[in-house]
């Protein structure tokens, strides 16, 4: 059985402890309620006709036969939406970003395979699918832009004729004297790294249901989303429905990984159809649709140069990055690669940085936030180039890292990109990881393996990421605040209402842990409600590993306010000074005479009967807080991956995987472990198997789970996980966030291990995914292998 170490002590009665999740019994027994599980009578079902071409003019669209099919209620095309809702603008932009019109339904032109053209409403999903086949579309195909390096060549066909080129936007970062750094360097190590396009692939694809109650003028939208409040604001703006007549509900959501951090065309259209039709409408995305029309992630090419001295000191980093953003920027599309730029120097003290980013239009689905969102790309490029430098200087990869790490005494540290790293203990974390992995022994084993002709490799990845998104005042905008209401009910039970919208992360549990500790009530007495804009305070959403650090802090702040109020009420009831009140074991007692006490329940009763309140105090025990962090948090860690490559087949076998993560203080080690392990799996998935492939015509080759190699249980290793704990100074809980760490740490650890295994053949780099065939061919091409 896997080795799980827990070396950190809990920091509260509930906080810091492994506590079973509140959400679990319902999810385990099939009683969860995902969007498709919510049945409304008289629902009409929606299916989308999507473009079969990557770039084409629509010359004819004939819906007459489909319209005549029994059971078809209505068919909506782009022409029907003229003057109603014409454009869904992105949120994250660059100063020079060319922002094309982003229609709800294409009218005369399509720019990627899967772009929606028409929506069929039918009595059941089967009829809706039948009707799609009866819609007649004629296309006039245009030249297709697929490869981003070709897309920016002069004379390339344009994705958007109104733009001068396929360069969508640019971003530049210059810090320190980069030219001097490169002049002074003993060696300049260069690499070209492709971070391939992958799919976020939540198990539940997208799903939207909408219902308009004309009498109440109330529009209710159920969506599998990470951002119910942002979706509500967008829908209000786009559909011109007052925000207070619009209710967005994110019920149980079957994973998201960034893919549901968006405002999609389908999400805008469904509520409009519900209003027009006066019936509930539902759209459940198929997996094939999901792979075409939900955002993809990554898709960067990084040209990296690292200036180093002969003793391994890093002097400067240059990076030129191309980011394939697809045809239409979605919500945060343009913001994601800027995260790569600002995090490019990683854990290292590199005095000079030059980063040039170019976003490129292609005839593909948009890229946007996928777990890690820009940071995995940053960690990958720096961790690969550092390993290449170590190889060139014949230094141990651990040694070169150690020499360049920021020291724990240097925090807070202002990076070349202007970020202020909050806290860190990189060397200690790496040393612990190496100890746990048995690094020195592994190197000896490797030596023996090589003598036997076996290809064993050891890969390190030391990462720092940017989390707890983020300060409202930062540039690029960081996500901002999060809110929470904590309410002690008249019976003494506690309700927490959160603006964040977890979907598998477990905040129904961690928020309850925070509230229970602060209010000294039993954990079972706390209920957490989220995801319904009609019942929870305004919120931002769940992304950027922000739920606990930002949303959890709002819970903590509200609980603190209630505590203060309870102390005042208790003091009044006991006729003592509030300063002499202490909350302990569910009672508020006199510090001087513990026998003088009232229970939380008695205080709650007093708060609502309002007979014995201190003069001037409002009744009730309900407080709301908005926490707006002043800084991000910067979790870090070291992952060690050990592989053996099968010489005859090119297959990569993971022999050992060690993750030492530091996400600051931990509320629930069990859920943290889950986040880390799941993240590692997705990182390894990208490194080994996964890749979204479009062919030269812009057709999606990996368009189903038959073709897209999502890893199975037999293809992933056991993970040995442990932590160090360096609290953040960015919030009072000291928590940093952990949702994306695994994905960020894992990918370079695996690739570094494989490249290390292949070092005897003089192989310096291999682009992901490291499928057996690619590894085998790369070996075969080397003369050393013959």
């Amino acid at each position, binding site marked *: 059985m896997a080795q799980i170490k827990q070396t950190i002590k809990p920091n509260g009665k509930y906080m810091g402890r492994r506590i*079973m999740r509140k*959400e679990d019994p319902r999810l*385990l027994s099939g009683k969860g309620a995902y969007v498709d599980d919510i049945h409304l009578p008289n629902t009409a079902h929606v299916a989308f006709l999507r473009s079969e071409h990557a770039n084409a003019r629509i010359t004819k669209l004939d819906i007459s036969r489909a319209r005549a099919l029994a059971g078809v209620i209505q068919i909506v095309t782009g022409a029907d939406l003229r003057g109603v809702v014409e454009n869904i603008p992105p949120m994250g932009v660059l100063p020079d970003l060319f922002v094309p019109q982003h229609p709800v339904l294409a009218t005369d032109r399509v720019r990627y395979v899967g772009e929606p053209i028409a929506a069929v409403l039918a009595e059941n999903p*089967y009829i809706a699918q039948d009707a799609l086949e009866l819609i007649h579309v004629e296309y006039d195909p245009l030249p297709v832009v697929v490869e981003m390096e070709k897309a920016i060549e002069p004379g390339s066909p344009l994705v958007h004729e109104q733009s001068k080129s396929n360069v969508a936007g640019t971003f530049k970062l210059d810090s320190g004297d980069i030219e001097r750094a490169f002049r002074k360097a003993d060696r300049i190590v260069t690499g070209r790294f492709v971070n391939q396009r992958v799919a976020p692939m939540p198990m539940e694809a997208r799903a939207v249901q909408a219902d308009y109650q004309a009498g109440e003028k109330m529009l209710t939208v159920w969506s599998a989303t990470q951002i119910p409040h942002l979706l509500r604001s967008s829908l209000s703006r786009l559909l011109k429905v007052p925000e207070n007549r619009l209710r967005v509900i994110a019920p149980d959501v079957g*994973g998201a990984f960034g893919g549901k951090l968006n405002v999609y065309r389908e999400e805008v259209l469904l509520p409009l159809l519900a209003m027009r039709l006066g019936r509930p409408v539902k759209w459940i995305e198929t997996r*094939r649709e999901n792979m075409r029309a939900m955002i993809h992630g990554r898709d960067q090419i990084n040209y990296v140069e690292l200036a180093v001295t002969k003793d391994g000191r890093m002097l400067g980093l240059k990076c030129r990055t191309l980011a394939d953003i697809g045809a239409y920027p979605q919500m945060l599309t343009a913001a994601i690669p800027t995260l790569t730029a600002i995090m490019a120097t990683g854990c290292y003290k590199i005095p000079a940085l030059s980063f040039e980013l170019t976003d490129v239009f292609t005839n593909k689905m948009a890229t946007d936030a996928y777990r890690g969102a820009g940071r995995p790309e940053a960690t990958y490029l720096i961790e690969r180039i550092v390993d290449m430098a170590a190889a060139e200087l014949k230094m141990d990869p651990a040694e070169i890292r150690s020499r360049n790490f920021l020291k724990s005494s240097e925090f807070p540290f202002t990076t070349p990109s202007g970020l202020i790293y909050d806290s860190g203990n990189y060397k200690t974390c790496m040393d612990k990881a190496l100890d746990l992995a048995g690094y020195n022994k592994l190197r000896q084993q490797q030596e023996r393996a090589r003598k036997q002709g076996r290809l064993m490799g050891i890969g390190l990845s030391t990462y720092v990421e940017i989390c707890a998104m983020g300060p409202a005042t930062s540039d690029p905008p960081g996500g901002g605040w999060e809110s929470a209401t904590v309410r002690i009910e008249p019976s003494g039970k506690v309700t927490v209402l959160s603006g964040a919208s977890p979907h*598998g992360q477990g905040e129904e549990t961690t928020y309850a842990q925070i509230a229970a500790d602060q209010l000294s009530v039993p954990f079972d007495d706390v209920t957490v409600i989220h995801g319904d804009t009609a019942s929870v305070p305004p919120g931002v959403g769940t992304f950027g590993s922000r739920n606990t650090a930002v949303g959890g802090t709002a819970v903590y702040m509200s609980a603190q306010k209630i505590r203060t109020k309870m102390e005042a009420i208790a003091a009044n009831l006991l006729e003592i000074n509030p300063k002499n009140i202490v909350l302990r074991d569910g009672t508020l007692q006199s510090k001087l005479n513990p026998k003088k006490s009232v229970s939380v329940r008695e205080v709650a009763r007093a708060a609502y009967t309002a007979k014995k309140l201190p003069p001037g105090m409002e009744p009730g025990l309900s407080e709301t807080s908005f926490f707006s962090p002043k800084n991000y948090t910067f979790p870090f860690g070291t992952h060690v991956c050990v592989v053996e490559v099968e010489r005859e087949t090119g297959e990569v076998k993971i022999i050992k995987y060690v993750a030492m993560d530091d996400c600051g203080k931990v509320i629930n080690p069990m859920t943290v472990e889950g986040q880390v392990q799941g993240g590692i799996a997705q990182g390894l998935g990208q490194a080994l198997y996964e890749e979204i492939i479009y062919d030269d015509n812009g057709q999606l080759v990996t368009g*189903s789970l038959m073709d897209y190699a999502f890893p199975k*249980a037999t293809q*992933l290793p056991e993970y040995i996980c442990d932590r160090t704990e360096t609290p953040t100074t960015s919030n009072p809980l000291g928590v940093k966030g952990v949702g994306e760490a695994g994905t960020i740490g894992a990918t370079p650890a695996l690739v570094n291990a494989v490249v290390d295994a292949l070092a005897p053949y003089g192989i310096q780099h291999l682009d992901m995914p490291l499928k057996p065939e690619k590894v085998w061919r790369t070996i075969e091409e080397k003369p050393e292998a013959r």
Partner: protein
Amino acid sequence: MQVKVKINGKEYQDDVEPRMLLVHFIREKARLTGTHIGCDTGNCGACTVLFNGRTIKSCLMLAVQANGAEIMTIEGLSTNGLHPIQDAFLEKFGFQCGYCTSGMILSAYVLLQSNPQPTDHEIREALEGNLCMCTGYQQIVESISYAATKMKEAGK
């Protein structure tokens, strides 16, 4: 076409289109929504149910093919609290978002019937037809292994 299916011991009879998938019958006609749909190619295993005691993917079978069959879904695993496998998933945190969980648990249930003390590798092989995007599988493997131990202790 008329179809009569016993699901979790209860008989469901309905007139359905011949092309209706079994998973839609279970979800829409029997209104048992614990069985989920995660793909359309039979790869993900979210729709796994027991068909006359064996696991099948209910998105790959027509409802009419199930005429006369006995189906068990996650809702039928335990009528009284949680089954030991569900308990183990709870204790060992064998899932996160819960979408794949019904299928995982039913695959585990069938595995443990034929192999009450599986090795980790055997568990992983038994889950070949079930994908999970959240956990990276380790905690699922631990849950099933733990369930096996608990069930042996309890003599179940």
